[in-house]
């Protein structure tokens, strides 16, 4: 069942919860031995990340619904809170989830700034937290037993695209992103790998988060006479940036590459043909040809009438991780050490490919794919052009 706060209620999640509750045989509910497993879901459901948070919740709901909202013999309850991409609000909502809702664990957080802001609280109060969104590497710089991440750590995807740009576009590029922790972090990761392998960054542009008109910066790019641009935008920023980039005729002049979030299926339909040919790296593509992904995409499409995005996949994998760990534990979450051990040992054939946790950083070890936007079966999608298997974040720094 999904419990909503009145302000953040959406019909879809409510219906999902209601439908799930309806499928439970009444006797099974009565026979339940343990308390429900209460999961606090803190994510951005408003502003430019609204769709990301919703996709994440959808993926997770799908995973739990497939087991009738049962995990390790306990009934799963999701308590949803909106951080509004605001660190202060995020921290406040986290405290509410932990202190008054008494949740067993917290999942979510797409926005890097919110994730970083709650870190001290998570550490001090030993909150069991599975981050299913933000990729900022700072989050896991000082690992802790109660912090896991099912999404990615930014160096993983950056290393792969940096090498691709170097090998396929050239040794000089410009960089551009939104001016916030996640954006700057992403560019500096890219730069680190690109420069280490002999590349040079000729220009860096940081436009404010939520910039609606990029013309100022596009004129700057035009005047700079570069051949390559590595960019990072997400959500509605990504739509505007890609559309305006094509509008100014830069697409044919300056080769655009990016982290895959910029051209994920949450934004790709709105970007339209402007996105064709953009090369990106990511640990997922809805076109991936493996059984787990085919089943996931089919189930997701049936339930939500649209294709999943990488954020949906993060949510789904988070659900699967929790289910598997709860099974190992027989539903007992009372001992933090045992819970950590059970989650750390989870291995999955996830939609994104083989999934395991790095025992040191608790970040996922996963495949990274280089993809290109193309027309696939009459829709725009990301086609995989190369695969780097089992990329681990700590191995990259060695």
């Amino acid at each position, binding site marked *: 069942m999904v419990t909503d706060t009145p302000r953040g209620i959406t019909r879809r999640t409510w219906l999902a919860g209601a439908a799930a509750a309806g499928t439970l045989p009444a006797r099974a509910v009565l026979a339940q031995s343990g308390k429900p497993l209460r999961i606090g879901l803190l994510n951005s459901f408003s*502003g430019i990340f*609204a769709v990301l948070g919703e996709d994440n919740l959808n993926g997770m709901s799908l995973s739990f619904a497939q087991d009738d909202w049962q995990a390790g013999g306990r009934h799963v309850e999701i308590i949803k809170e909106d951080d509004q991409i605001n660190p202060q609000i995020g921290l406040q909502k986290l405290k509410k989830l932990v202190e008054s809702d008494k949740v067993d664990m917290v999942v979510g957080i797409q926005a890097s700034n919110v994730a970083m802001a709650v870190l001290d609280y998570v550490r001090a109060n030993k909150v069991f937290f599975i981050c299913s969104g933000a990729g900022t590497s700072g989050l896991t710089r000082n690992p802790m037993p109660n912090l896991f991440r099912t999404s990615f750590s930014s160096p993983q995807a950056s290393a792969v695209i940096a090498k691709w740009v170097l090998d396929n576009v050239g040794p000089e590029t410009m960089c551009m992103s939104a001016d916030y922790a996640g954006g700057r972090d992403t560019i500096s990761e890219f730069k680190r790998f690109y420069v280490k392998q002999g590349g040079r960054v000729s220009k860096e542009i940081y436009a404010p988060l939520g910039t609606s008109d990029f013309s100022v*910066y596009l004129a700057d790019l035009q005047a700079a006479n570069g051949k390559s641009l590595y960019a990072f935008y997400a959500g509605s920023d990504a739509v505007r940036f890609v559309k305006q980039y094509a*509008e*100014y005729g830069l697409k044919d002049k300056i080769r655009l590459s990016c982290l895959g979030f910029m051209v994920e299926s949450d934004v790709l339909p*709105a970007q339209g043909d402007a996105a064709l040919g953009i090369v990106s790296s990511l640990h997922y593509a809805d076109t991936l040809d493996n059984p787990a992904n085919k089943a996931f995409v089919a189930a997701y499409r049936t339930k939500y009438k649209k294709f999943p995005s990488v954020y949906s996949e993060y949510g789904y994998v988070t659900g699967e991780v929790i289910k598997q760990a709860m099974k190992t534990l027989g539903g007992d979450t009372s001992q933090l050490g045992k819970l950590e051990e059970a989650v750390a040992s989870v291995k999955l054939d996830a939609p994104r490919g083989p999934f395991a946790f790095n025992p040191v950083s608790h970040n996922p070890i996963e495949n990274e794919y280089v993809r290109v936007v193309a027309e696939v079966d009459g829709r725009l999608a990301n086609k995989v052009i190369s695969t780097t298997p089992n990329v681990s974040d700590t191995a990259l720094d060695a």
Partner: protein
Amino acid sequence: MHFLITQVLNGLVSGMILFLTAAGLSLIFGLMNVVNVAHGSFFMLGAFVGLSVQQFTGSFWAALLLAPLPALLLGAVMERVFIRPLYRRGHLDQVLLTFGFTFVFVDAVRWLWGSGISSVSVPPVLDGIVRLGGIVVPKYRLFLIFVGLLLALVLWLVIERTRLGAMVRASVDDAPTAEGMGINVPLLQSSVFAAGVGIAALGGAVAAPIIGVYTGMDIEILIPAFIVVVIGGMGSLSGAFFGSVFVGLADTLGRSYLPGLSLFLVYVVMIVVLLTRPAGLFVARRS
């Protein structure tokens, strides 16, 4: 030099988008003394209605034509039913009410259209770029500047050269006397409110191909539009126009030449204007 001209054109584009919102905001404030925080919501509504019309008919021009209609109707109803009783109350009550409306609008839009971002494509005739010397400008941006200028001219002609405009000006200056002269001020107020939010809706529809269509665009346009009204002077059409161009240029050139200061440059300008010309830059001082 090319770079500067390009950035000036970019500044004009953002100025014109601002003008379409600020014009109504300023007139409504001038005529009714109402601070309409929900003004940006009509900008958003226009963009979404335009999106749906275009999806349904396939015509961008139909979208532009029809986008203001729901806003016109809703605006007229909103003025009659909710705002009119608040004319004699303070600005705080009006702000609370119209601020509440922004939530209603956002949730209604989310419910009807979802919370994702959509985009509107431009008609083939406006697709592509124009090269003027060494300057590259997308055709649609030139079109947008044209729409803004045209609308400014039409509004100016209506207000300065027609009987209707004279009635509006009279009511702005002194509503009780205007009423005494036989002008139906309440009707005029409803009409100006509806027209003001209708123009904002047109602004949303015409800006949609550039900035996209999403919930949140209401607040993003509202804040700079308020700054325009403060800088340009409240209740003045020419103030709204020159204020918009001024803010558009200051913001664009600031972003391009002083990127570190870009986020608060416009606010600095506003503070300076408030300190030195509190009535606004483009308003003739009245005794």
